[in-house]
């Protein structure tokens, strides 16, 4: 190992997310092209860019929903390309939370059950699961709504349930895909406060896709994506 490589390695040791020359092609379309960057532990990073530039695709690659056509990604030193689909799921269970732009709550489960949902396959008493879910719901200010089905909740309430769900497994990394995109600005602000609190007080690493320049200003660092390529600000 030469010296240069050794320096790179130590840098990587501190990084929670390491994206190396990642590309993704869907036939002729290449929404992600040779992207490389790192995110450090406890950082709050935003990814900005015009619609259709490949943000969601990149996020999906980083969370292991999809495999890159080229390059590699590691989370906490674990190479995603080395893992099977099931191992990827288990890795997400262990250290990743994901907030979707479209909530994706389970329609047949109430708010509390939705929050506890990622823990269902985990060996744990129902009581314990409920306790953890309730705690997070309370934190999101939704304690009163625990037994409501998603269809009976407002958009902002649904997104808060989704955030509580993303946090129920105590993740080290939280991926968010425009978490406020579907909400009015007041509700969006509330949600954002919750997330920044999480980052500041509990040291959760946050990687967030957003259109909103104001949110970018709140973050530690912003990345800009255009035509599949990412640049630091």
């Amino acid at each position, binding site marked *: 190992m030469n010296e240069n490589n050794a320096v790179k390695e130590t840098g990587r040791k501190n990084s929670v997310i390491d994206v190396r020359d990642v590309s993704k092609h869907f036939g002729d379309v290449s929404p992600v092209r040779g992207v490389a960057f790192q995110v450090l532990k406890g950082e709050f990073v935003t990814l900005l860019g015009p619609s259709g530039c490949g943000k969601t695709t990149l996020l999906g690659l980083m969370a292991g929903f999809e495999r890159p056509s080229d390059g590699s990604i590691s989370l906490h030193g674990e190479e995603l390309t080395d893992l099977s689909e099931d191992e990827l799921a288990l890795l997400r269970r262990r250290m990743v939370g994901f907030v979707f732009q479209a909530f994706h709550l389970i329609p047949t*489960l109430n708010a509390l059950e939705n929050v506890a949902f990622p823990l*269902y*396959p985990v060996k744990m008493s129902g009581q314990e699961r409920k306790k953890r879910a309730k705690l997070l719901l309370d934190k999101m200010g939704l304690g009163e709504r625990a037994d409501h089905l998603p269809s009976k909740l407002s958009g902002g309430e649904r997104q808060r349930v989704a955030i509580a769900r993303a946090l129920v497994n105590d993740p080290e990394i939280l991926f968010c895909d425009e978490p406020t995109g579907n909400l009015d600005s007041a509700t969006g602000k509330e949600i954002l406060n919750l997330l920044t609190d999480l980052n500041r007080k509990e040291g959760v690493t946050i990687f967030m896709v957003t259109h909103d320049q104001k949110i970018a200003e709140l973050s530690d660092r912003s990345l800009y994506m255009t035509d599949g390529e990412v640049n630091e600000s």
Partner: protein
Amino acid sequence: MINGQYLISELKNRRRRTAVNIGLVALVTCVLICITLLAGALNRAFQAPLKDIGANMTVQLAGDVPEQMAGPVLPCSVAPISAELSKTISSLPAIQSISQALLFWDFSDEGFQIVVGIQPDDRAGPALLRGSVTTGRMLTRDDSSKALAEVVWAKKAGLGPGDQVKVGGRIFTIVGLVDTSTLSSIGTANLYITLSEARDIVATAPGVAKIHSFGPQDSNLLFIQADRDKTEDVAGKIKQILGEKTTVSTPNSFKQLLGSLFTLTQRFSGMISGLVFLLALLLIMRNAAAAVRERVKEIGTMKAIGWTGRDIRSQLLAENSLYIVLGTLLGLVLGGLAAWGLSFISIAIPIPWDMAPTPHFLPGGEEQLFHEVRLVMEPGLRFLLLVTVVPLFLGLAAVWSASRFITRLQTSEVLRYE
């Protein structure tokens, strides 16, 4: 690991899907039950004419028509079967019991009567009439000059126990009346006497001697109980022994005798039930697979938040087994009710003339005799396994393969808008 909470929520909050899934399985199970039970009941109905006389085969030999209807004569459908040949037949393998009887027509100045000589102790044949004696008593082996009279015929003739009748010119005393309507019409008669006395009468009758050589130990009707699955085999061997003119009646020959109609419905019902079964299974499989496919998005979410393919598959399997089990239970109840309703149907099986010969020239002689049989629904263990286990197994196989396919899809689907 299967989560009960989620399972119940899915069942409860997706009422339509739950109802469709359970209803479909129930319907399929119910239809299967009806068709299969009905086919079985029809099959058994064809055995009924023989079963009621404690046999599953009857044997008779065709012969010449009597020259003159005077005194005791043998109808042309029941020529003598020699004692020797009867013995050969009884020693065939797969034959459990054999009972001989002798049927003849007795003409006299006073009129005409059908007489059957029976062995009162036999386990098959008209000896089973002992269960249907309405007044007086059954014949016994040691009776001499005693007769048992058929109740309707006796009433018409104003006869009862203690009265005397003439058979072949000899005097017999009636000891009892018997109701033959519970029996099939095979071997039914106006009067029953012991086989040995019947043999005496027939052996000395000039009307018989003119056409047949009748030995003192001969008979003309054999009632045979043979191993159920070997009846056709045995029938063939008996035909070899007795020759071309033998009529061996088996449940199968009944079906053939009764014309193409019944065999057609039989084959048809077999085909239909096979078809329905296949269709039903396809439906169940399609539906189960659809139930999984409809949830691609949800499954994507599950994977995205850390459920493994195995977690998802076992959850889906549990959910669908619950549908199928509940559906099967409901189907069993519905099918049971339907089968109960069907069991009130009875069918009339025509009895061929040769098996219950009456002279054509007498009033009523031309009338077709029918044997009424209630359809008996008899579900067997194998049948229950068929209607319960097979749908469950195939339904789950469909769910498993569908969910396997889906859990292998990439999780990225879930990122896109609906």
